[in-house]
Every structure is written in structure tokens, then in C-alpha cells.
């Protein structure tokens, strides 16, 4: 049981890493958001794995919360992305450099 939990954790870690790489490499805001979503889901997966390891529902409860929160985040995020596109006609974060020293 614990072994499989660890396996899942491993998968989650890989997923998390992939998301991180995505955030780092992508310049498009939408893709970055998606990558962050992946990372959040990876965390959720890890929770589920942990919950299963300890035979508790807590992990899955947490996953639900994560989902809800991710949804909220994405909605706000997309709204902002729209605004950006509206104002800057671009989705490239590298163009968002007006706030700086």
C-alpha cells in the first residue's frame, strides 16, 4: 500500500516538475496558467496518494478544495488575461514590463 502511495507521489512529483518547467518556459500567459493548473493538480494527486496511504478521506477532501480553488483562480486569471489582451494586444508576459525599477 505504502509502496503504491509512493509511486503515485513520484508521478505527482514528475507532474509537478513538468508544470514548473511549463511555467518557466512559456511566455504566453494562458499557457502559464495552464502549467500552474498542472502543478495544482499534481499537488492534489499527492494529497490523494497520502490520503490513501493513511486510509483517510482527508486527502480527497483536500483535493476537492484544490479543484474549487483552481477553478476560482483560473476564472479570475482568464478575466485578467482578457483585460491584458484588450489593453496590450498580446499575451506575452515579456511585454508586461511597465512596472519595474
Amino acid at each position, binding site marked *: 500500500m505504502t509502496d503504491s502511495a509512493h509511486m503515485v507521489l513520484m508521478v505527482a512529483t514528475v507532474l509537478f516538475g513538468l508544470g*514548473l518547467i511549463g*511555467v*518557466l518556459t512559456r*511566455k504566453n500567459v494562458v499557457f502559464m496558467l495552464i502549467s500552474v493548473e498542472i502543478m495544482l493538480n499534481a499537488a492534489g494527486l499527492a494529497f490523494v496518494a497520502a490520503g490513501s496511504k493513511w486510509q483517510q478521506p482527508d486527502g480527497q477532501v483536500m483535493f476537492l478544495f484544490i479543484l474549487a480553488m483552481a477553478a476560482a483562480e483560473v476564472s479570475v486569471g482568464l478575466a485578467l488575461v482578457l483585460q491584458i489582451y484588450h489593453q496590450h494586444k498580446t499575451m506575452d*508576459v*515579456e511585454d*508586461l*514590463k*511597465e*512596472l*519595474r*525599477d
Partner: protein
Amino acid sequence: MNQLLAYIPAFPLIGFLILSLFGRKLPKPVIATIGAGTVCIAAIITIVLGVSFLQTPPAGGAFHQLLWSWFKVGKLSIDISLQVDALTLVFIFIITFVGALIHIYSTFFMWHDGDYARFFASMNLFVCAMLLLVMADNLVLLYLGWEGVGLCSYLLIGFWYEVPSNCRAANKAFLITRIGDTALLIGLFLLFRELGTLNIQGILQQAPAHFTTGSANIVLITILLMIGGMGKSAQMPLQTWLPDAMAGPSPVSALIHAATMVTAGVYLIARMHGLFQLSPVTMTIVAIIGACTLLVAGCSALAQTDIKRILAYSTISQIGYMFLALGVGAWSAAIFHFFTHAFFKALLFLAAGVVIEALHHEHNIFMMGGLRKRMPIVFVTFLAGAAALSALPLVSAGFFSKDAILWYSWSAANGNVFLWLMALAGAFITALYSTRLMLVVFWGEPKTPVHEAPAQGMIIPLIVLAFFSVTAGFIEWPHNMMHLTLFSDHVQKVLPETIMKAYLPSEWFFQAIAALVTGAGIYLGYTMYYGKAGVRWQQSPGLASTREFLFSGWKFDQLYNFIFVKPFLFLTRINKSDVIDRMYNGIAQGSLRLSNWFSVSQNGSLRLYIVGVLAGILFIITLQLLL
């Protein structure tokens, strides 16, 4: 009588206070009355005191008056308290009496000056400070007077402050004497550390028991005191300020830079004789310094053209005699020379002042000439002074005092043939330059018109001083002639007797040689400077470099300029903006630069920020793995 002491310095002090506070508003006659009057009163009190002292000597040989306790800290207890013993009496007599004469002279001499009150205020303050110096019963009070006279000297040299060179002269005088003063101060510290007191009587009583003769401490102490004296008395190598100090008005030169202040060093050494006796090395050094100074300054006097500078160098030279006398242990001879010197040198300066005044402030002796006829009284008095200066045998005060010094420089236990020879050479030179001075100024063709006759009030002090210049010596005759010892009997109540060599040649012999040498000097001067000859010597090209060397006072100024002044100025100039400040500015600059570097990270790029977060994680994880 004790209660009288305080009044002596108090009157000049009152004069100073009135003049300095209200001087500008008072009419000149009032100022003159106050300025000269207070000193005259002090002189009268002094004479009363002196008479009483001579008639009924006080118990313990000194009058005492405690005014108030100045400060008392720990073991150190200093009073403002006065003391007059035989030695002091001589000094206060000169200070007040000669001082009074010079003040009277000044009331006329300075009449046309705008700053009449300031002059008398400073002069009164000087008299007060000088009196405190000699009347002090402890060394701190002495130091107060010591610095006080320095201040007044500074003020009076720079009296005509609009001329920058006068200010420079004043500064120079103050600074060089300050070097000596500082040495004196350190000497005081050392004395206090060793003896735990600064009371003069206390020191003199304890010293023999505390110090072994010639031990390091006593040598050090006496050398420091000696340097102090050298600064004030313009002895080598601290002599360079005195010729420049002639920038002050002539009465100032007469009072401060001839009669009184410059002899403070002599007073100090004589006063602390108990210490110096414990340190034969220092005594020898004092003698050598005196001998060297008298020669060097005498030679310099030969080449001067400014009448006051000649007298200034002559003063240095004469004080050199006093130092020589002190050095060989001829205490009373030194004081006696001070006594006579005060009269004749003050006289010479005052007379020079009259001459200068009469000739439209002409200082150059070669622009004078022929004054014998036109200013006969001045001529006669000047002659008396010059005779005393060149120690014309039997008819001048200078002879009696200088002859004693010559005699002791050989015959005293500390004396030797070299000192005697140097003193003798000095006597020759003195006679030479005195003659030169007389001949160039009073004989020959008139070169500058005399514009006014000196006021009567200026002539009277001259006559009085001339009288004393001739007669002051009569109170002390050599052993082989009459053996009159009024003066030395008096001062030897305080000062020890001179220790003589065991085997002595005849004193007549020495006197004869001295007289001969003086005569030779006068004769040589006569041949060189009588008539047109003087100008020739003055212009002969072969001697130009020597003359220039002597004229500049043996290049001491240039030397000091090179060794001290230039490096000092250089040092201060390069460090004007404070190197250490650079360090702090560097820190500030560094921080600002750091700030600029850091703010590169704030370039607004979201991706960079993410990298930042990642770097943080990596850092934390690395730390975790490491530990």
C-alpha cells in the same frame, strides 16, 4: 606690607579693564592718565615695598599674600597667591619703574594713533601679566603670567594689524614662544609627578632630597624648563621671532622685547636655580646656548640695516650673556646684567623710537645720519645707551654687569676657556655694532629731513634711563676694585653664591683684556664706518654673501621654513578635505552601487520573478540536503 602685594598688579589690571571696556569713549588725556597712571602707582607701591623690604626684611625673606584658592583637585592644589622676595623685587622694580617710564613716553609717542586706548589697555595688561609672572608663588600662576605676557606681546606686535606682515610677525612670535611654553608645561607635569607640588618654595625645598644630582628626571625637567625659557628669551634655536617682533611700536619693543618679557626665561631659570644646580648637564647646555646665541645674534646685528632689528639682535645677544651667566652658576651676575640691560636697552629702543618718529618712520640706518647736531639730547642719551651696551669700562652700567659675566665664564666652577673666549668675541662684536650704529645714525651727512622735534615728555624718560644706564652699575663693583656688592648681597638672599674654581688667575688681567677687546671693537667700528667708509662696507661686493647670510639671521628662518613650515602646510593642504571622509563616502557609494545592482533584478519580468522563486526553492533544498 603683605597686603600691598596685590595692589601692584591690580592697578595695571584696573587700567586694562577700564580702557578695554570704555576706552573708545574716553578722551585721550584720560586714557593717558589711566594708562600711565596705573603703572606709575604700581611703581610707587613697588618702591615703598622695596624700601620696606630693605629696611626690615620680612620673615623668611619674602612677602606673601594669598588671594584665593584657584583650584584644588586631588593632590593638586593651586592658589592665586603672590610672593615677593629679593629676586622678585629686582624684577618688579624694573617692570614697574621702567614700565612707568615707557608708559609716560608712550602717552606722547602714541598720541596720534587712532587706537590709543587699545594700546594702553594692552600695555597695562602686559604689565599686570608680567608682574604676576614674577610674583607668582607657584608655577601654574607663573605660567598664567607667562602666557599672559605672550598674549600681550602678540597683541602689541600686531598692534598695527592692517599690515599683514605685522600680523605674521605677531603670529610667529606667539607660536615660537608657544613651543617653549609647551615644553615648560610638560616640565610642570613632570615636576608634579615627581614632587607632588607646584609651589615654588615647595619644589626648591623638596628637590635636593628627591632627586639625585644628574639623575634622568631632573635633567629632563630642567631641560624642559630651559626650553621654556629659551622660547620666551629668544635663545637659539628659538630666537627667530624677536627680530620680526620689532613690527610693534617702539615703546612695546622697549618694554616687552628688551626690558622685561624676553628676560622671563632668565627669571625662570634663576627662580628654579635649585633644580638647575642638581643638573650640571643642563647648566652646561644653558651656558653653551647662551654663548652660541650671543655670538650668532651679535654677528647678525652687524649686518642689519633696520635700527630696531639691530637692537633686537643685540637684545638676543645680551640675553645670551645672561644665559651664559646662569649656565656657569653666576646667578647674581645674570640678574645684574638683566638689571642694567633693562635700562640701557629700553633707553636705546625709546631713543630709536624718537629717531624713527622724527624721520617719518624711517627704519633704515643708512637713510639716517647726522642726527648728532639736530637731535642733541637724543644723541647724548643714545650715546649713554650705546656705551653701556658696548660695556665701556667704568663709565657705563653695562661694563660692570658684563665684566662680571666675562669673569665668571672663566672663573666659575662651571666656566671654561671656550665660554670665556666666546663671550669675549661677543663683547668685541657688541662694541663693533654699537659703534656702527652710533656712527651711521648720528654722524655723517643727513639723508632724511627731521620733521619735528620730539615732545618733552618723551625726552624726560630718555634722560632718566640714560642716567641709570650710566649709574646703575655703580652698586656692584668687581672684587678687585672697591668690592662693592650691594646688588649681589641683595639677590643672594635668594640665589646661591657662585662657586668658583679653586685656582684663579688675577681678575685684573681679565678686565684688562675685556677692556682692550671693547676698545678694539670700537676702534674697528670707527675705522670701518666713520664718514663715507660705512657705506663702502655696506656695499662691498666681496662680502655680499656673508652680509646676506648674517642679515637673514644665519638663515634660521629659511631653515625652519624648509623643515617645518612647508611640510606642515603641504600636509594640511593635501588633507584639507579629510581622507577619512573618503572612506565613508566610499561606503555610501558602495551601498548605492549595490542598490543599482539589486534593482536589476526588479526588471518587471514575470519570468525572472519565477526564476527567483525557483532559485529560492533550490537554495532551501540545497541547504536541506547539505545539513
